[in-house]
């Protein structure tokens, strides 16, 4: 039987990919950020997940304004890194897990989550930066990946409550897959950042850390935070944090914290990272 063994939360700032690709991980600016991922890189070498369900958002790379799926699941065989205007990142193609992905897609739809199915797309920094943060430099990524793209660009994005419930449904779907697989679920994006307008550069460490506390708690209070609170307190792009709730919802009510890291700044953004396991 497949099982979800851990959840990982992480920012996915594009500049982290640049720092990694240009060998700047240990310089004065990026050193304190990457130091907070050293523990996770060692842990992932022990854990050896077979599949990562990677919750992220596309930043006008695979999706433009023509189609705006709220929740979309990648059922393809492989995904190439997207050209985001600077040329594609020189990182390996992402290998999918179509058997499990289609199983989850079908299960979710029967469970009344009306997913969009993706067979072909390129994946942008939202997906490849977390892979670099957790696995470092690789010839091939050490795991297969099921991309799960969430619309957090055009309003309204899904509610935190809906994201949590989707996570619960993903966990049920994984548990009903007959093959023995070690599955992790990652929620990415955030933490506080605003990339637009006169209020750009907003950072709220107190709120971000309270959010991390709520993720660690053995209850589901965090699912009820309304969109307006993310926007007011953490900046317009802080809304990405609803994606972490899909990860958290998939772990069940009780969790234990394995690792936690927070750093300001990376470009315009607060970096947050947490590793949780079902308890």
């Amino acid at each position, binding site marked *: 039987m497949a099982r979800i063994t851990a959840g990982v939360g992480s920012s996915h700032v594009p500049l982290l990919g640049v720092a990694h690709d240009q060998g700047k991980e240990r310089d004065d600016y990026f050193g304190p950020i990457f130091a907070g991922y050293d523990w996770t890189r060692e842990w992932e070498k022990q854990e050896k997940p077979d599949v990562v369900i990677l919750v992220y958002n596309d930043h006008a790379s695979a999706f433009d304004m023509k189609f705006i799926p709220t929740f979309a699941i990648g059922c393809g065989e492989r995904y190439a890194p997207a050209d985001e205007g600077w040329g594609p990142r020189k990182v390996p193609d992402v290998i999918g897990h179509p058997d499990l992905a289609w199983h989850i897609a079908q299960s979710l739809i029967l469970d009344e989550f009306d997913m969009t199915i993706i067979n072909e797309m390129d994946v942008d920094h939202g997906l490849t930066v977390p892979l670099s943060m957790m696995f470092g430099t690789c010839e091939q990524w050490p795991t297969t990946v099921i991309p799960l793209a969430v619309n957090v660009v055009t309003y309204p994005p899904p509610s935190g409550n809906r994201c949590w419930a989707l996570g619960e449904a993903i966990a049920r779907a994984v548990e009903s897959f007959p093959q023995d697989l070690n599955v992790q679920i990652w929620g990415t994006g955030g933490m506080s950042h605003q990339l637009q307008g006169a209020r750009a*550069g907003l950072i709220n460490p107190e709120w971000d850390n309270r959010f991390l506390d709520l993720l660690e708690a053995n209850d589901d209070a965090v699912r009820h935070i309304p969109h307006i609170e993310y926007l007011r307190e953490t900046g317009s792009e802080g809304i990405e944090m609803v994606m972490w709730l899909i990860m958290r919802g998939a772990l069940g009510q009780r969790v234990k914290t394995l690792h936690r890291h927070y750093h300001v700044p990376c470009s315009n953004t607060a970096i947050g990272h947490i590793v949780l396991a079902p308890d």
Partner: protein
Amino acid sequence: MTHTDIHAYLAEFEDIPGTRVFTAKRARQGYHLNQFAMSLMKPENRERFKADERAYLDEWAISEEAKLAVLARDYNALLDMGGNIYFLSKLFSTDGIAFAEAVSTMTDMSWPEYRQMMLDGGRSPEGVRSIREGR
């Protein structure tokens, strides 16, 4: 689940200072502007745009006002006309400038001042959460 009133939900966004939330209204208004920006994902389009920006813009169903704002790289004006930051970022990368530098042009700070603010911990949320409540 509790029912959310769409009108109240949208009205609250207008109470956040210095922020344009990318609502359906803005998405409709800025559709062609954003699709123009998206076209710059392709290297051949970037080259054509750089060769003659005005001629490239004239291929799109964009208002004259928006075309001028693109030519001037006036990002606040483009946000007002329904531009979305992730789409407009294709213009940053076409220009070869860092995301944060382009973002700084939307504030009242120079790029070095903005960068220093971020190094010092970013902009505090104090006083910029709500216009109505002044907090």
